[in-house]
């Protein structure tokens, strides 16, 4: 049980490392948001699953914590994306399609 738990915890920590490297390497706010919101969520879920395998008595609190992380983290990243788009930050490439900007212009 302990070995399985540490395997899951190691997978979560590797997800954190990928997230950190991506935050340094990505060129744009929105791509940084993509890598800085999703992979820490996955890493925290893996760490919590591994902790459930090591200490099964704490399962209730840990499942509560995992549910909370899974509900609130996409919400907060969505709030940041909406706020930075409204404050006038544009995408990196000129070629790509900005659908939110286009729908705003059509509604005018």
């Amino acid at each position, binding site marked *: 049980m302990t070995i399985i738990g*540490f395997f899951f*915890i*190691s997978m*979560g*920590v*590797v997800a*954190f*490392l990928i*997230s*950190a*490297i991506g*935050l*340094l390497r990505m060129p744009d*706010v929105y791509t*940084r*948001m993509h890598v*800085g*919101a999703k992979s*820490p*969520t996955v*890493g*925290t879920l893996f*760490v*919590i699953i591994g*902790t459930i395998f*090591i*200490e099964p*008595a*704490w399962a209730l*609190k*840990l499942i*509560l*914590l995992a549910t*909370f*992380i899974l509900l*609130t*983290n996409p*919400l*907060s*990243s969505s*709030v*940041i994306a*909406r*706020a*930075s788009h*409204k*404050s006038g*930050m544009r995408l990196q490439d000129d070629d790509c399609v900005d659908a939110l900007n286009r729908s705003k212009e059509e509604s005018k």
Partner: protein
Amino acid sequence: MFEAVVMVLLFSMFLILIRFLKGPTLSDRVVAFDALSVISVSVLVILALYFERSIYLDVALVFGVIGFLGTTIFGRFIEKGI
């Protein structure tokens, strides 16, 4: 085993802290802050596992709530100002 896990965690927190200090705009810093607060939750879970005390899980839950509120309030600050 704990030492290797904590070393990799501290290294990734250090890399995110570089982005937090360097980030060109305010949104980059807020994204880095969000990632740091989520990673701190799992640091607290590993700390509870190391000291074998389940009281740290309550601290992790409260820290998750506070981090979510902080990120949301920063989003409002980017959008409208104070």
